[in-house]
Protein backbone atom coordinates (compact mmCIF):
# COMPACT_ATOMS: atom_id res chain seq x y z
CA UNK A 1 0.00 0.00 0.00
CA UNK A 2 1.46 3.27 -1.07
CA UNK A 3 1.70 6.15 1.39
CA UNK A 4 0.22 9.60 0.97
CA UNK A 5 2.42 12.01 -0.91
CA UNK A 6 2.05 15.70 -1.56
CA UNK A 7 0.62 15.01 -4.98
CA UNK A 8 -2.48 13.41 -3.47
CA UNK A 9 -3.18 16.58 -1.52
CA UNK A 10 -2.51 18.74 -4.52
CA UNK A 11 -4.94 16.74 -6.64
CA UNK A 12 -7.51 16.91 -3.84
CA UNK A 13 -7.20 20.69 -3.62
CA UNK A 14 -7.38 20.97 -7.41
CA UNK A 15 -10.60 18.93 -7.43
CA UNK A 16 -12.11 21.08 -4.66
CA UNK A 17 -11.08 24.23 -6.55
CA UNK A 18 -12.71 22.99 -9.76
CA UNK A 19 -15.88 22.00 -7.88
CA UNK A 20 -16.03 25.53 -6.48
CA UNK A 21 -15.55 27.17 -9.89
CA UNK A 22 -18.12 24.94 -11.59
CA UNK A 23 -20.57 25.51 -8.78
CA UNK A 24 -20.21 29.24 -9.33
CA UNK A 25 -20.81 29.09 -13.07
CA UNK A 26 -23.44 26.33 -13.27
CA UNK A 27 -25.50 27.60 -10.35
CA UNK A 28 -28.66 29.18 -11.74
CA UNK A 29 -30.76 29.64 -8.64
CA UNK A 30 -29.56 30.99 -5.38
CA UNK A 31 -27.19 33.73 -4.34
CA UNK A 32 -26.30 31.86 -1.14
CA UNK A 33 -24.87 29.05 -3.27
CA UNK A 34 -22.47 31.56 -4.82
CA UNK A 35 -21.24 32.53 -1.35
CA UNK A 36 -20.76 28.83 -0.52
CA UNK A 37 -18.83 28.20 -3.73
CA UNK A 38 -16.52 31.11 -2.96
CA UNK A 39 -15.85 29.57 0.47
CA UNK A 40 -15.09 26.25 -1.24
CA UNK A 41 -12.54 27.92 -3.52
CA UNK A 42 -10.84 29.53 -0.52
CA UNK A 43 -10.90 26.14 1.23
CA UNK A 44 -9.09 24.59 -1.74
CA UNK A 45 -6.31 27.16 -1.40
CA UNK A 46 -6.15 26.46 2.33
CA UNK A 47 -5.76 22.69 1.81
CA UNK A 48 -2.96 23.37 -0.60
CA UNK A 49 -1.20 25.77 1.76
CA UNK A 50 -1.38 23.55 4.80
CA UNK A 51 -0.30 20.37 3.02
CA UNK A 52 2.53 22.15 1.21
CA UNK A 53 3.61 23.62 4.52
CA UNK A 54 3.79 20.15 6.12
CA UNK A 55 5.65 18.55 3.25
CA UNK A 56 8.07 21.44 2.79
CA UNK A 57 8.64 21.60 6.55
CA UNK A 58 8.06 25.35 6.48
CA UNK A 59 5.71 27.16 8.86
CA UNK A 60 4.87 30.09 6.56
CA UNK A 61 2.17 28.22 4.69
CA UNK A 62 0.21 27.60 7.86
CA UNK A 63 0.50 31.27 8.83
CA UNK A 64 -0.87 32.16 5.43
CA UNK A 65 -3.82 29.80 5.90
CA UNK A 66 -4.72 31.47 9.21
CA UNK A 67 -4.80 34.81 7.40
CA UNK A 68 -6.99 33.29 4.69
CA UNK A 69 -9.43 32.03 7.34
CA UNK A 70 -9.85 35.48 8.89
CA UNK A 71 -10.20 37.23 5.54
CA UNK A 72 -12.67 34.61 4.30
CA UNK A 73 -14.80 35.27 7.38
CA UNK A 74 -14.73 39.04 6.73
CA UNK A 75 -15.56 38.46 3.09
CA UNK A 76 -18.54 36.22 3.90
CA UNK A 77 -19.83 38.79 6.39
CA UNK A 78 -19.64 41.58 3.84
CA UNK A 79 -21.22 39.43 1.14
CA UNK A 80 -24.12 38.53 3.40
CA UNK A 81 -24.56 42.16 4.44
CA UNK A 82 -24.87 43.29 0.82
CA UNK A 83 -27.23 40.39 0.15
CA UNK A 84 -29.50 41.33 3.07
CA UNK A 85 -29.74 44.91 1.80
CA UNK A 86 -30.55 43.63 -1.67
CA UNK A 87 -33.21 41.27 -0.31
CA UNK A 88 -34.92 44.12 1.55
CA UNK A 89 -35.37 46.08 -1.66
CA UNK A 90 -36.08 43.27 -4.09
CA UNK A 91 -37.77 40.61 -1.98
CA UNK A 92 -35.89 37.68 -3.54
CA UNK A 93 -32.33 36.54 -4.20
CA UNK A 94 -32.80 34.62 -7.42
CA UNK A 95 -29.58 34.85 -9.43
CA UNK A 96 -31.37 35.04 -12.77
CA UNK A 97 -33.30 38.10 -11.61
CA UNK A 98 -30.16 40.12 -10.86
CA UNK A 99 -30.23 41.75 -14.27
CA UNK A 100 -31.31 45.33 -13.87
CA UNK A 101 -27.97 46.69 -15.01
CA UNK A 102 -27.26 45.81 -18.61
CA UNK A 103 -26.75 47.42 -21.99
Amino acid at each position, binding site marked *: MSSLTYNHFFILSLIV*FIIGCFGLFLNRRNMILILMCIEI*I*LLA*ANINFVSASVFLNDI*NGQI*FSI*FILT*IAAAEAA*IGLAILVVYFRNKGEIDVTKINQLRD
Partner: protein
Amino acid sequence: MIDFYSFAPEIFLLTLILISITLGVLNKDATITINTTGFSLLIIFLIFKGHSLYQNSLFSLNTINLILLSKIILSIGSIVFILLSRRSLKNENLFRYEYILFILFAILGSFVLISSDNFLTAFIGLELQSLSLYLMAAFNTKNLNSNEAGIKYFSLGALSSGFLLFGISMIYFDTASFTFQNLANFSTISEVGLALVLIALFFKVSAAPFHIWTPDVYEGSPTISALFFASLPKFASLIFLFRIYHELNISKIDSLNYIFQLVCAISLLVGVYGAITQKVIKRLLAFSSINHIGFILLAIMSYQYMSEGTIFFYLIIYLVTIFGVFSVILNLRTSEGEITLLTGLNGLKASSRSKAISMLVFLFSLAGIPPFAGFFAKFFILSASINEGLYLLSVIAVISSVIAAFYYLSVIKNMFFNESENELLLDNSKLSSFIFIFSALVLTLFFFYPDPLINLVDSLFY
Protein backbone atom coordinates in the same frame (compact mmCIF):
# COMPACT_ATOMS: atom_id res chain seq x y z
CA MET B 1 13.96 42.24 14.92
CA ILE B 2 11.04 43.87 13.17
CA ASP B 3 11.72 47.35 11.87
CA PHE B 4 8.51 49.17 12.80
CA TYR B 5 9.79 52.48 11.46
CA SER B 6 9.58 51.28 7.87
CA PHE B 7 5.81 51.00 8.01
CA ALA B 8 5.26 54.27 9.79
CA PRO B 9 2.88 55.58 7.07
CA GLU B 10 0.64 52.53 7.43
CA ILE B 11 0.62 52.77 11.23
CA PHE B 12 -0.19 56.46 10.93
CA LEU B 13 -3.12 55.67 8.64
CA LEU B 14 -4.36 52.99 11.03
CA THR B 15 -4.29 55.51 13.89
CA LEU B 16 -6.20 57.93 11.71
CA ILE B 17 -8.82 55.22 11.08
CA LEU B 18 -9.20 54.48 14.79
CA ILE B 19 -9.57 58.19 15.60
CA SER B 20 -12.15 58.58 12.83
CA ILE B 21 -14.18 55.60 14.08
CA THR B 22 -14.46 57.12 17.55
CA LEU B 23 -14.90 60.70 16.46
CA GLY B 24 -17.35 59.94 13.67
CA VAL B 25 -20.02 58.87 16.14
CA LEU B 26 -19.96 62.30 17.75
CA ASN B 27 -19.34 64.61 14.84
CA LYS B 28 -19.45 63.60 11.20
CA ASP B 29 -17.82 66.72 9.83
CA ALA B 30 -14.90 66.53 12.22
CA THR B 31 -13.73 63.27 10.58
CA ILE B 32 -13.26 65.18 7.35
CA THR B 33 -11.12 67.86 8.99
CA ILE B 34 -9.06 65.28 10.87
CA ASN B 35 -8.46 63.18 7.79
CA THR B 36 -7.48 66.00 5.46
CA THR B 37 -5.06 67.31 8.08
CA GLY B 38 -3.72 63.79 8.63
CA PHE B 39 -3.14 63.19 4.94
CA SER B 40 -1.44 66.58 4.56
CA LEU B 41 0.95 65.70 7.39
CA LEU B 42 1.57 62.34 5.75
CA ILE B 43 2.42 64.03 2.42
CA ILE B 44 4.87 66.39 4.12
CA PHE B 45 6.47 63.48 5.97
CA LEU B 46 6.78 61.36 2.81
CA ILE B 47 8.29 64.20 0.79
CA PHE B 48 10.92 65.19 3.36
CA LYS B 49 11.67 62.02 5.31
CA GLY B 50 10.43 59.36 2.91
CA HIS B 51 13.79 57.93 1.99
CA SER B 52 14.70 57.22 5.59
CA LEU B 53 11.77 54.77 5.79
CA TYR B 54 13.23 52.09 3.60
CA GLN B 55 16.96 52.44 4.25
CA ASN B 56 17.12 49.02 5.93
CA SER B 57 14.96 47.29 3.34
CA LEU B 58 16.07 45.06 0.49
CA PHE B 59 14.29 47.18 -2.12
CA SER B 60 16.34 48.69 -4.92
CA LEU B 61 16.54 52.48 -5.09
CA ASN B 62 14.17 52.58 -8.06
CA THR B 63 11.57 50.57 -6.21
CA ILE B 64 11.83 52.83 -3.18
CA ASN B 65 11.26 55.90 -5.32
CA LEU B 66 8.35 54.19 -7.01
CA ILE B 67 6.75 53.31 -3.68
CA LEU B 68 7.24 56.78 -2.22
CA LEU B 69 5.92 58.63 -5.25
CA SER B 70 2.86 56.37 -5.45
CA LYS B 71 2.12 56.93 -1.78
CA ILE B 72 2.39 60.70 -2.20
CA ILE B 73 0.04 60.62 -5.19
CA LEU B 74 -2.41 58.38 -3.32
CA SER B 75 -2.42 60.76 -0.35
CA ILE B 76 -3.02 63.83 -2.51
CA GLY B 77 -5.75 61.96 -4.36
CA SER B 78 -7.45 60.94 -1.15
CA ILE B 79 -7.52 64.49 0.21
CA VAL B 80 -9.22 65.67 -2.97
CA PHE B 81 -11.53 62.67 -2.96
CA ILE B 82 -12.58 63.03 0.69
CA LEU B 83 -13.49 66.69 0.19
CA LEU B 84 -15.33 65.90 -3.03
CA SER B 85 -17.23 62.96 -1.54
CA ARG B 86 -18.62 65.05 1.34
CA ARG B 87 -20.33 67.45 -1.02
CA SER B 88 -21.59 64.79 -3.38
CA LEU B 89 -22.92 62.49 -0.66
CA LYS B 90 -24.74 65.39 0.98
CA ASN B 91 -26.43 66.11 -2.35
CA GLU B 92 -27.65 62.50 -2.47
CA ASN B 93 -28.61 62.45 1.22
CA LEU B 94 -26.12 59.66 1.77
CA PHE B 95 -23.60 61.38 3.97
CA ARG B 96 -22.52 59.02 6.73
CA TYR B 97 -19.08 58.91 8.29
CA GLU B 98 -18.66 55.22 7.40
CA TYR B 99 -18.00 56.28 3.82
CA ILE B 100 -14.88 58.15 4.95
CA LEU B 101 -13.78 55.01 6.81
CA PHE B 102 -14.15 52.90 3.66
CA ILE B 103 -11.98 55.40 1.80
CA LEU B 104 -9.36 55.20 4.54
CA PHE B 105 -9.39 51.39 4.61
CA ALA B 106 -9.08 51.22 0.84
CA ILE B 107 -6.16 53.65 0.90
CA LEU B 108 -4.51 51.67 3.72
CA GLY B 109 -4.92 48.53 1.63
CA SER B 110 -3.37 50.30 -1.37
CA PHE B 111 -0.41 51.44 0.76
CA VAL B 112 0.19 47.87 1.98
CA LEU B 113 -0.20 46.53 -1.56
CA ILE B 114 2.24 48.99 -3.12
CA SER B 115 5.01 48.45 -0.61
CA SER B 116 4.63 44.68 -0.19
CA ASP B 117 7.60 42.49 -0.94
CA ASN B 118 5.84 39.15 -0.63
CA PHE B 119 2.55 37.60 -1.61
CA LEU B 120 1.18 37.44 1.95
CA THR B 121 1.16 41.21 2.48
CA ALA B 122 0.10 41.78 -1.11
CA PHE B 123 -2.90 39.52 -0.60
CA ILE B 124 -3.90 41.26 2.62
CA GLY B 125 -3.55 44.69 1.03
CA LEU B 126 -5.55 43.69 -2.01
CA GLU B 127 -8.34 42.21 0.12
CA LEU B 128 -8.49 45.21 2.45
CA GLN B 129 -8.80 47.39 -0.62
CA SER B 130 -11.46 45.38 -2.40
CA LEU B 131 -13.60 44.62 0.67
CA SER B 132 -14.09 48.36 1.18
CA LEU B 133 -14.79 48.81 -2.52
CA TYR B 134 -17.66 46.27 -2.44
CA LEU B 135 -19.26 48.27 0.35
CA MET B 136 -18.74 51.57 -1.44
CA ALA B 137 -20.51 50.15 -4.50
CA ALA B 138 -23.53 49.14 -2.40
CA PHE B 139 -23.46 52.30 -0.28
CA ASN B 140 -26.79 53.67 -1.51
CA THR B 141 -28.75 51.02 0.40
CA LYS B 142 -32.18 52.30 -0.65
CA ASN B 143 -31.38 52.01 -4.34
CA LEU B 144 -31.76 48.64 -6.06
CA ASN B 145 -29.20 49.45 -8.76
CA SER B 146 -26.58 50.23 -6.17
CA ASN B 147 -27.28 46.97 -4.32
CA GLU B 148 -27.06 45.02 -7.52
CA ALA B 149 -23.75 46.67 -8.38
CA GLY B 150 -22.50 45.65 -4.93
CA ILE B 151 -23.58 42.02 -5.42
CA LYS B 152 -22.01 41.79 -8.87
CA TYR B 153 -18.78 43.37 -7.73
CA PHE B 154 -18.65 41.18 -4.65
CA SER B 155 -19.30 37.83 -6.31
CA LEU B 156 -16.84 38.39 -9.17
CA GLY B 157 -14.27 40.04 -6.89
CA ALA B 158 -14.38 37.18 -4.41
CA LEU B 159 -13.92 34.71 -7.26
CA SER B 160 -10.85 36.60 -8.41
CA SER B 161 -9.36 36.60 -4.91
CA GLY B 162 -9.95 32.84 -4.87
CA PHE B 163 -7.91 32.61 -8.08
CA LEU B 164 -5.22 34.80 -6.51
CA LEU B 165 -4.99 32.55 -3.45
CA PHE B 166 -4.90 29.33 -5.39
CA GLY B 167 -2.20 30.78 -7.62
CA ILE B 168 -0.13 31.85 -4.62
CA SER B 169 -0.53 28.39 -3.07
CA MET B 170 0.79 26.76 -6.25
CA ILE B 171 3.77 29.12 -6.29
CA TYR B 172 4.38 28.35 -2.62
CA PHE B 173 4.33 24.61 -3.23
CA ASP B 174 6.86 24.96 -6.01
CA THR B 175 9.31 27.43 -4.50
CA ALA B 176 8.62 27.17 -0.74
CA SER B 177 8.60 30.96 -0.50
CA PHE B 178 6.34 33.99 -0.90
CA THR B 179 9.04 36.62 -1.13
CA PHE B 180 9.49 38.14 -4.58
CA GLN B 181 13.29 38.11 -4.36
CA ASN B 182 13.42 34.35 -3.77
CA LEU B 183 11.23 33.52 -6.72
CA ALA B 184 13.30 32.60 -9.75
CA ASN B 185 13.60 29.68 -12.16
CA PHE B 186 9.94 28.90 -12.43
CA SER B 187 8.74 25.41 -13.22
CA THR B 188 5.45 24.75 -14.97
CA ILE B 189 3.45 24.65 -11.73
CA SER B 190 4.67 28.10 -10.69
CA GLU B 191 3.96 29.43 -14.14
CA VAL B 192 0.36 28.26 -13.88
CA GLY B 193 0.19 29.74 -10.39
CA LEU B 194 1.60 33.05 -11.55
CA ALA B 195 -0.88 33.07 -14.44
CA LEU B 196 -3.71 32.74 -11.90
CA VAL B 197 -2.22 35.60 -9.85
CA LEU B 198 -2.01 37.76 -12.99
CA ILE B 199 -5.62 36.95 -13.89
CA ALA B 200 -6.72 38.12 -10.43
CA LEU B 201 -4.74 41.36 -10.85
CA PHE B 202 -6.14 41.92 -14.34
CA PHE B 203 -9.55 41.55 -12.81
CA LYS B 204 -8.80 44.17 -10.16
CA VAL B 205 -7.59 46.70 -12.74
CA SER B 206 -10.52 45.71 -15.02
CA ALA B 207 -8.47 44.70 -18.05
CA ALA B 208 -10.47 42.87 -20.72
CA PRO B 209 -11.45 39.92 -20.91
CA PHE B 210 -11.87 40.23 -17.14
CA HIS B 211 -13.79 43.49 -17.36
CA ILE B 212 -17.39 42.23 -17.32
CA TRP B 213 -18.17 43.77 -13.94
CA THR B 214 -16.85 47.24 -14.80
CA PRO B 215 -19.70 48.89 -16.77
CA ASP B 216 -22.41 47.45 -14.50
CA VAL B 217 -20.66 48.44 -11.29
CA TYR B 218 -19.87 51.95 -12.52
CA GLU B 219 -23.45 52.47 -13.64
CA GLY B 220 -25.12 51.12 -10.53
CA SER B 221 -22.97 52.50 -7.76
CA PRO B 222 -23.11 56.13 -6.58
CA THR B 223 -21.18 58.37 -8.98
CA ILE B 224 -18.66 59.35 -6.34
CA SER B 225 -17.84 55.66 -5.74
CA ALA B 226 -17.43 55.15 -9.47
CA LEU B 227 -14.85 57.94 -9.43
CA PHE B 228 -13.01 56.12 -6.66
CA PHE B 229 -13.04 52.75 -8.49
CA ALA B 230 -11.67 54.41 -11.60
CA SER B 231 -8.89 56.28 -9.87
CA LEU B 232 -6.97 55.48 -6.70
CA PRO B 233 -7.31 51.69 -6.06
CA LYS B 234 -6.79 51.04 -9.75
CA PHE B 235 -3.66 53.17 -9.64
CA ALA B 236 -2.33 51.12 -6.71
CA SER B 237 -3.10 47.79 -8.39
CA LEU B 238 -1.36 48.96 -11.57
CA ILE B 239 1.75 49.93 -9.64
CA PHE B 240 1.72 46.50 -8.01
CA LEU B 241 1.28 44.84 -11.42
CA PHE B 242 4.24 46.85 -12.68
CA ARG B 243 6.37 45.72 -9.74
CA ILE B 244 5.42 42.05 -10.18
CA TYR B 245 6.13 42.22 -13.91
CA HIS B 246 9.65 43.48 -13.35
CA GLU B 247 10.66 41.90 -10.06
CA LEU B 248 9.58 38.43 -11.17
CA ASN B 249 11.00 38.96 -14.69
CA ILE B 250 7.78 37.99 -16.40
CA SER B 251 9.14 39.30 -19.70
CA LYS B 252 11.54 36.32 -19.69
CA ILE B 253 8.72 33.76 -19.34
CA ASP B 254 7.22 33.30 -22.79
CA SER B 255 3.83 31.89 -21.84
CA LEU B 256 3.08 34.63 -19.30
CA ASN B 257 4.35 37.33 -21.60
CA TYR B 258 2.00 36.01 -24.24
CA ILE B 259 -0.94 36.28 -21.81
CA PHE B 260 0.12 39.84 -21.02
CA GLN B 261 0.21 40.85 -24.69
CA LEU B 262 -3.11 39.18 -25.38
CA VAL B 263 -4.80 40.95 -22.46
CA CYS B 264 -3.30 44.26 -23.58
CA ALA B 265 -4.61 43.86 -27.14
CA ILE B 266 -8.07 42.73 -26.02
CA SER B 267 -8.34 45.62 -23.54
CA LEU B 268 -7.46 48.15 -26.21
CA LEU B 269 -10.09 46.74 -28.58
CA VAL B 270 -12.88 46.00 -26.09
CA GLY B 271 -12.43 49.46 -24.61
CA VAL B 272 -13.40 51.08 -27.89
CA TYR B 273 -15.75 48.46 -29.27
CA GLY B 274 -17.93 48.44 -26.17
CA ALA B 275 -18.06 52.21 -25.84
CA ILE B 276 -19.36 53.05 -29.31
CA THR B 277 -22.99 52.11 -28.69
CA GLN B 278 -23.20 53.31 -25.09
CA LYS B 279 -25.82 55.83 -24.08
CA VAL B 280 -25.04 56.05 -20.37
CA ILE B 281 -22.23 58.39 -19.29
CA LYS B 282 -20.79 56.13 -16.61
CA ARG B 283 -20.76 53.05 -18.87
CA LEU B 284 -18.91 55.10 -21.49
CA LEU B 285 -16.34 56.15 -18.90
CA ALA B 286 -15.99 52.51 -17.80
CA PHE B 287 -15.14 51.35 -21.31
CA SER B 288 -12.84 54.33 -21.79
CA SER B 289 -10.98 53.31 -18.63
CA ILE B 290 -10.60 49.76 -20.02
CA ASN B 291 -9.00 51.25 -23.13
CA HIS B 292 -6.59 53.26 -20.97
CA ILE B 293 -5.68 50.15 -18.97
CA GLY B 294 -4.62 48.64 -22.31
CA PHE B 295 -2.25 51.57 -22.84
CA ILE B 296 -0.80 51.22 -19.36
CA LEU B 297 -0.21 47.48 -19.86
CA LEU B 298 1.62 48.38 -23.07
CA ALA B 299 3.74 50.83 -21.05
CA ILE B 300 4.52 48.16 -18.46
CA MET B 301 5.70 45.79 -21.19
CA SER B 302 7.97 48.32 -22.87
CA TYR B 303 9.58 49.52 -19.66
CA GLN B 304 13.17 48.97 -20.89
CA TYR B 305 12.98 51.97 -23.17
CA MET B 306 11.62 54.43 -20.67
CA SER B 307 11.85 55.37 -17.05
CA GLU B 308 9.28 54.78 -14.36
CA GLY B 309 8.67 58.48 -14.90
CA THR B 310 6.90 57.80 -18.19
CA ILE B 311 4.46 55.30 -16.72
CA PHE B 312 3.88 57.67 -13.84
CA PHE B 313 3.33 60.51 -16.25
CA TYR B 314 0.55 58.57 -17.99
CA LEU B 315 -1.00 57.56 -14.68
CA ILE B 316 -0.90 61.13 -13.30
CA ILE B 317 -2.45 62.56 -16.46
CA TYR B 318 -5.10 59.83 -16.36
CA LEU B 319 -5.90 60.55 -12.70
CA VAL B 320 -6.10 64.32 -13.30
CA THR B 321 -8.41 63.82 -16.27
CA ILE B 322 -10.70 61.34 -14.55
CA PHE B 323 -11.01 63.55 -11.46
CA GLY B 324 -11.86 66.47 -13.73
CA VAL B 325 -14.47 64.60 -15.77
CA PHE B 326 -16.21 63.24 -12.70
CA SER B 327 -16.23 66.56 -10.85
CA VAL B 328 -18.00 68.13 -13.83
CA ILE B 329 -20.53 65.29 -13.94
CA LEU B 330 -21.10 65.43 -10.19
CA ASN B 331 -22.00 69.11 -10.59
CA LEU B 332 -24.72 68.56 -13.19
CA ARG B 333 -28.22 67.70 -12.07
CA THR B 334 -31.72 67.88 -13.44
CA SER B 335 -34.84 68.21 -11.36
CA GLU B 336 -35.07 64.38 -11.22
CA GLY B 337 -31.60 63.88 -9.83
CA GLU B 338 -28.21 63.11 -11.34
CA ILE B 339 -27.90 62.99 -15.09
CA THR B 340 -27.19 59.49 -16.34
CA LEU B 341 -27.67 59.53 -20.10
CA LEU B 342 -25.30 61.15 -22.58
CA THR B 343 -28.22 63.16 -23.94
CA GLY B 344 -28.36 64.81 -20.51
CA LEU B 345 -25.24 66.71 -21.51
CA ASN B 346 -27.09 68.33 -24.42
CA GLY B 347 -26.70 72.07 -24.49
CA LEU B 348 -24.17 72.21 -21.70
CA LYS B 349 -22.44 75.08 -23.47
CA ALA B 350 -25.50 77.29 -23.13
CA SER B 351 -25.94 76.67 -19.42
CA SER B 352 -22.33 76.72 -18.29
CA ARG B 353 -19.53 77.72 -20.58
CA SER B 354 -16.70 76.90 -18.15
CA LYS B 355 -17.95 73.35 -17.58
CA ALA B 356 -18.41 72.74 -21.29
CA ILE B 357 -14.92 73.99 -22.13
CA SER B 358 -13.31 71.96 -19.32
CA MET B 359 -15.15 68.84 -20.52
CA LEU B 360 -13.87 69.58 -24.03
CA VAL B 361 -10.31 69.67 -22.71
CA PHE B 362 -10.75 66.42 -20.78
CA LEU B 363 -12.32 64.54 -23.69
CA PHE B 364 -9.68 65.78 -26.15
CA SER B 365 -7.01 64.77 -23.68
CA LEU B 366 -8.54 61.29 -23.22
CA ALA B 367 -8.74 60.92 -26.99
CA GLY B 368 -5.10 62.01 -27.32
CA ILE B 369 -5.54 65.07 -29.52
CA PRO B 370 -2.27 67.04 -29.70
CA PRO B 371 -2.09 70.23 -27.72
CA PHE B 372 -3.31 68.50 -24.57
CA ALA B 373 -1.24 66.44 -22.16
CA GLY B 374 -3.05 63.18 -22.97
CA PHE B 375 -1.43 63.22 -26.39
CA PHE B 376 2.09 63.36 -24.94
CA ALA B 377 1.30 60.57 -22.49
CA LYS B 378 0.21 58.33 -25.35
CA PHE B 379 3.07 59.48 -27.55
CA PHE B 380 5.75 58.52 -24.97
CA ILE B 381 4.22 55.07 -24.54
CA LEU B 382 3.93 54.42 -28.27
CA SER B 383 7.50 55.50 -29.00
CA ALA B 384 8.79 53.21 -26.23
CA SER B 385 6.70 50.27 -27.39
CA ILE B 386 7.93 50.64 -30.97
CA ASN B 387 11.51 50.64 -29.70
CA GLU B 388 10.67 47.50 -27.76
CA GLY B 389 9.53 45.83 -31.00
CA LEU B 390 5.87 45.47 -30.08
CA TYR B 391 4.75 46.58 -33.54
CA LEU B 392 1.41 44.80 -33.69
CA LEU B 393 0.33 46.07 -30.28
CA SER B 394 1.38 49.63 -31.16
CA VAL B 395 -0.68 49.50 -34.35
CA ILE B 396 -3.68 48.21 -32.38
CA ALA B 397 -3.19 50.99 -29.83
CA VAL B 398 -3.14 53.67 -32.53
CA ILE B 399 -6.20 52.26 -34.29
CA SER B 400 -8.07 51.97 -31.02
CA SER B 401 -7.41 55.58 -30.11
CA VAL B 402 -8.61 56.68 -33.55
CA ILE B 403 -11.90 54.85 -33.01
CA ALA B 404 -12.06 56.17 -29.45
CA ALA B 405 -11.87 59.72 -30.81
CA PHE B 406 -15.21 59.05 -32.52
CA TYR B 407 -17.17 58.58 -29.32
CA TYR B 408 -15.37 61.29 -27.40
CA LEU B 409 -16.17 63.69 -30.24
CA SER B 410 -19.81 62.64 -30.29
CA VAL B 411 -20.05 63.62 -26.60
CA ILE B 412 -18.53 66.99 -27.50
CA LYS B 413 -21.12 67.37 -30.27
CA ASN B 414 -23.86 66.76 -27.69
CA MET B 415 -22.49 69.44 -25.44
CA PHE B 416 -21.89 72.15 -28.00
CA PHE B 417 -24.35 71.71 -30.86
CA ASN B 418 -27.47 69.98 -29.50
CA GLU B 419 -30.37 71.74 -27.86
CA SER B 420 -31.00 70.78 -24.26
CA GLU B 421 -34.17 68.86 -23.38
CA ASN B 422 -34.30 69.28 -19.62
CA GLU B 423 -33.04 72.33 -17.89
CA LEU B 424 -29.78 71.62 -16.13
CA LEU B 425 -29.58 72.68 -12.51
CA LEU B 426 -26.01 73.64 -11.87
CA ASP B 427 -24.72 72.89 -8.44
CA ASN B 428 -21.82 75.28 -8.18
CA SER B 429 -19.71 74.01 -5.37
CA LYS B 430 -16.45 75.95 -5.13
CA LEU B 431 -14.38 72.85 -4.54
CA SER B 432 -15.42 70.89 -7.60
CA SER B 433 -15.25 74.01 -9.78
CA PHE B 434 -11.72 74.46 -8.53
CA ILE B 435 -10.89 70.81 -9.27
CA PHE B 436 -12.12 70.78 -12.85
CA ILE B 437 -10.68 74.18 -13.71
CA PHE B 438 -7.35 73.18 -12.18
CA SER B 439 -7.32 69.85 -14.06
CA ALA B 440 -8.18 71.54 -17.34
CA LEU B 441 -5.38 74.07 -16.79
CA VAL B 442 -2.86 71.31 -16.03
CA LEU B 443 -3.78 69.45 -19.20
CA THR B 444 -3.65 72.56 -21.39
CA LEU B 445 -0.63 74.34 -19.96
CA PHE B 446 1.50 71.22 -20.14
CA PHE B 447 2.09 71.94 -23.81
CA PHE B 448 3.48 75.41 -23.07
CA TYR B 449 5.33 74.69 -19.83
CA PRO B 450 6.15 70.96 -19.78
CA ASP B 451 9.12 71.36 -17.44
CA PRO B 452 7.42 71.60 -14.04
CA LEU B 453 5.54 68.30 -14.32
CA ILE B 454 8.35 66.39 -16.05
CA ASN B 455 10.96 67.69 -13.61
CA LEU B 456 8.72 66.84 -10.69
CA VAL B 457 8.33 63.25 -11.86
CA ASP B 458 11.98 62.86 -12.81
CA SER B 459 13.46 64.51 -9.74
CA LEU B 460 11.75 61.96 -7.55
CA PHE B 461 13.47 59.16 -9.41
CA TYR B 462 17.03 60.37 -9.72
